């Protein structure tokens, strides 16, 4: 059975990675693949989004399926499907085998409660309107880490390698490497090198989480993962159960092969629990990943998995005080995060340009799970993770940074991949009518204004029709007193959609002479300028 499980894990991981790679434009305005199905099937994101936004969104068939499957079969998702779990599994292989006795000692008996307490905090916070689950949800975390750090890293490494061989220019080797390079460019490599602010931090956090497997295999799954905790709670009355026959002599072989920490019998000092036989009631069903590992190593062949209607194993005991503290902590989240003046009219960070179709900021934050899908798919790479521009509550949510990349006028991909509807899916007519901000000219830097030089790149690239940037032809005298004609740009604020291409392409590099702020964004009732 373990091999079937491994096959399933590999399949889901490959599917996940393949869909991840497909989260990229091929030139059409549709991706052609359901790239967000993993997030659609995530019950934690589903529940917390509904609680925080107090509205039902999108497809819920998949999330409900996952819930029902867990209620019947236990945490099969964790053991058989979760791509992050599989990565933990793989990294865990690097862990040095410890002596049988020692391993029990290393295990902290009660750390597993952390994930339940974290889950309580997240759910209570969601009840009070704060969506933080995305920071810890394994799928959102994985997609974010891959999008913003790991994929850029691989892309950089491969590109610099092949560029190196290309400049090296040794006949056979370079021809071969170019062949491989062009193949990679068509398949795995992103179209243009992805570069993200904070990529390094998001990457370091990801590596740290993976490194925890060296302390203990699947450390994250056992002790931190709130989705695992949620599925654990759902699996309380699962029909698929482990049973142990009378042949068990308590050798502990099953415990050493356990992925999830479901078998924690005996005393914490690590003594072989010869007396305490490993019995079904000591099996923590909520912690079992249904990996079926314990089935094979049992020398007595005493372990079997099957469907039974036996009473559920002992209820999860977190301790009343701990639960109460977590609830209180969850209640404190909303007021603590929101004692910021950013929400006052006119006090918001002006560079916080949200992607087109983003909901009004308050609702946007309740829905955005910071998965990074929109940033992954953005064709110009302009969508970047925020740091504190939207408050700590909005950390790693998407912001358009026109200096890095603009919003392509006829592209609606970010809204198509958003799993929670924080960014609405727009059609092209809606997109053309959606303002994400307004451009304004800095006359102190603009060439035709400040330096009497010809330019008008902003007018050339302005995508609206009629163009939001128009020019006024003026006559002036140059330094030598000769009369000259010059075109000076102006922004028609009623036509400008704030796409930022003018800022991206402005030849005044560094601090462009035309910049976009979120003033005038369609999604806000208050952040308006025009009458």
């Amino acid at each position, binding site marked *: 059975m373990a091999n079937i499980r491994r096959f399933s894990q590999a399949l889901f991981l490959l599917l996940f990675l393949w869909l991840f790679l497909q989260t990229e434009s091929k030139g059409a305005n549709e991706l052609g693949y359901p790239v967000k199905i993993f997030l659609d099937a995530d019950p934690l994101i589903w529940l917390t989004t509904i609680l925080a936004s107090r509205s039902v969104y999108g497809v819920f068939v998949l999330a409900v399926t996952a819930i029902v499957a867990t209620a019947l079969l236990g945490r099969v998702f964790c053991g058989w499907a979760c791509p992050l779990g599989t990565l933990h599994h793989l990294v865990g292989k690097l862990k040095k085998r410890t002596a049988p006795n020692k391993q029990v000692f290393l295990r902290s008996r009660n750390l597993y409660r952390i994930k339940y307490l974290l889950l309580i905090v997240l759910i209570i916070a969601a009840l009070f309107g704060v969506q933080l689950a995305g920071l810890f949800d394994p799928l959102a975390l994985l997609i974010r880490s891959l999008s913003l750090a790991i994929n850029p890293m691989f892309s950089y490494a491969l590109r610099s390698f092949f*560029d190196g061989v290309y400049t090296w220019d040794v006949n056979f080797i370079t021809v071969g490497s170019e062949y491989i390079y062009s193949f990679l460019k068509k398949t795995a490599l992103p179209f243009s090198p992805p570069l993200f602010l904070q990529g390094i931090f998001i990457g370091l956090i990801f590596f740290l989480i993976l490194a925890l497997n060296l302390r203990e295999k699947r450390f994250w799954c056992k002790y931190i993962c709130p989705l695992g905790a949620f599925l654990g709670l759902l699996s309380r009355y699962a029909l698929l159960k482990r049973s142990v026959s009378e042949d068990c002599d308590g050798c502990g072989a099953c415990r050493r092969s356990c992925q999830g920490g479901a078998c924690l019998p005996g005393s914490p000092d690590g003594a072989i629990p010869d007396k305490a036989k490993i019995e079904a009631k000591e099996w923590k069903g909520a912690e079992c990943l249904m990996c079926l590992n314990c089935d094979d190593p049992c020398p007595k062949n005493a372990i079997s998995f099957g469907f039974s209607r036996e009473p559920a194993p002992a209820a999860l005991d977190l301790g009343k005080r701990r639960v109460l503290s977590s609830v209180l902590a969850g209640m404190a989240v909303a007021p603590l995060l929101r004692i910021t003046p950013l929400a006052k009219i006119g006090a918001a960070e002006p560079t916080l340009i949200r992607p087109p179709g983003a909901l009004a900021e308050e609702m946007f934050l309740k829905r955005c799970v910071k998965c990074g899908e929109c940033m992954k798919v953005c*064709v110009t790479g302009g969508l970047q993770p925020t740091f504190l521009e939207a408050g700590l509550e909005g950390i790693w949510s998407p912001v358009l940074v026109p200096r890095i990349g603009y919003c392509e006028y*006829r592209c609606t991909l970010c809204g198509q991949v958003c799993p929670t509807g924080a960014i609405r899916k727009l059609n092209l007519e809606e997109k053309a009518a959606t303002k994400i901000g307004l451009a304004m000219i800095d006359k102190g830097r603009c060439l035709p204004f400040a330096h009497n030089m*010809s*330019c*008008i790149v902003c007018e050339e690239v302005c*995508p609206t*029709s009629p163009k939001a940037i128009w020019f006024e032809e003026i006559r002036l005298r140059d330094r030598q007193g000769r009369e000259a004609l010059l075109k000076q740009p102006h922004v028609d604020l009623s036509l400008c959609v704030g796409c930022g291409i003018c800022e991206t392409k*402005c030849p005044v590099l560094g601090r462009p002479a035309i910049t976009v702020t979120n003033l005038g964004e369609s999604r806000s009732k208050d952040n308006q300028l025009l009458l």
Partner: protein
Amino acid sequence: MNRRDFLKNAVVSGAALTLPLGIAPFLSMAGGADRPDLAVVRGASPALITSVAVNELGGMRRFVSRGDIVVVKPNIGWDRTPEYAANTNPEVVAEIVRLCYGAGAKQVKVFDNPVSDARRTYKQSGIAAAATAAGAQVSFVDERKFKDMAIKGQFLKTWPLYTEIIEADKVINVPIAKVHGIAALTLGMKNWMGIMGGSRGRIHQRINESLVDLARFVRPTLVILDAVRILVDNGPQGGSLSDVRRLDTVIAGTDQVAVDALGTTLFGMKPDALGCVRIAHSAGLGNMNISRLRIKRLTI
């Protein structure tokens, strides 16, 4: 064999009797020494008028030799579909690719360094699909292939240009005729911006002189100006069908100044009203005096 191939072969073999009546007059010129400087062909099929225009000038064999590597450089600058006339007509591009192969080209490359996202411009313009179907090697520009080149122009001393253009045996420029904010019009010479790397927006400070510097450095074998649809407002990007006029015309020639000069008349302008044409003419790069040119006009 489709109608296009049939026509092409028919022209080459001089099988005049099989041709539609409208084309008959030009046959007297085909292969003759008395070739026009410019061919202006008008007709409903973009591919057919392209093919006829090239034949008017002596056929593609005059320009492309067996085994040549040819670059066909359309304008694929913007994320717009063909009916918005922001990019070169895909059928015109595809027909030129076919004619090149018909003349024995070893490889025909099609690319542009667009302003909008390249994946979208290649796809939405319809050029990638049409040119690929015609057998061209359509590729996105590879940053590594921009090399600083000594242009030694009046304003552009050195600039990173795309090496594939420079290394090609033959270069065919296939611009589309559009209005443009700073250059007034964008025709053939303006299309060379698409082989520039670096922060090319800077050349707008001296757009006309810079374009002439470029045009002097990159001399095309043939220029085919696509005026099947022209953009008369909100250029060079357009975005509304009301910005577009349908002229169903192509202008072909070997003198890039002459092609641009005649191109200005599509917009009711005088050639010398377009800065780069005027400067290129006085620099001896070509001839903008339309009255002195032999112009063959045909309607199919």
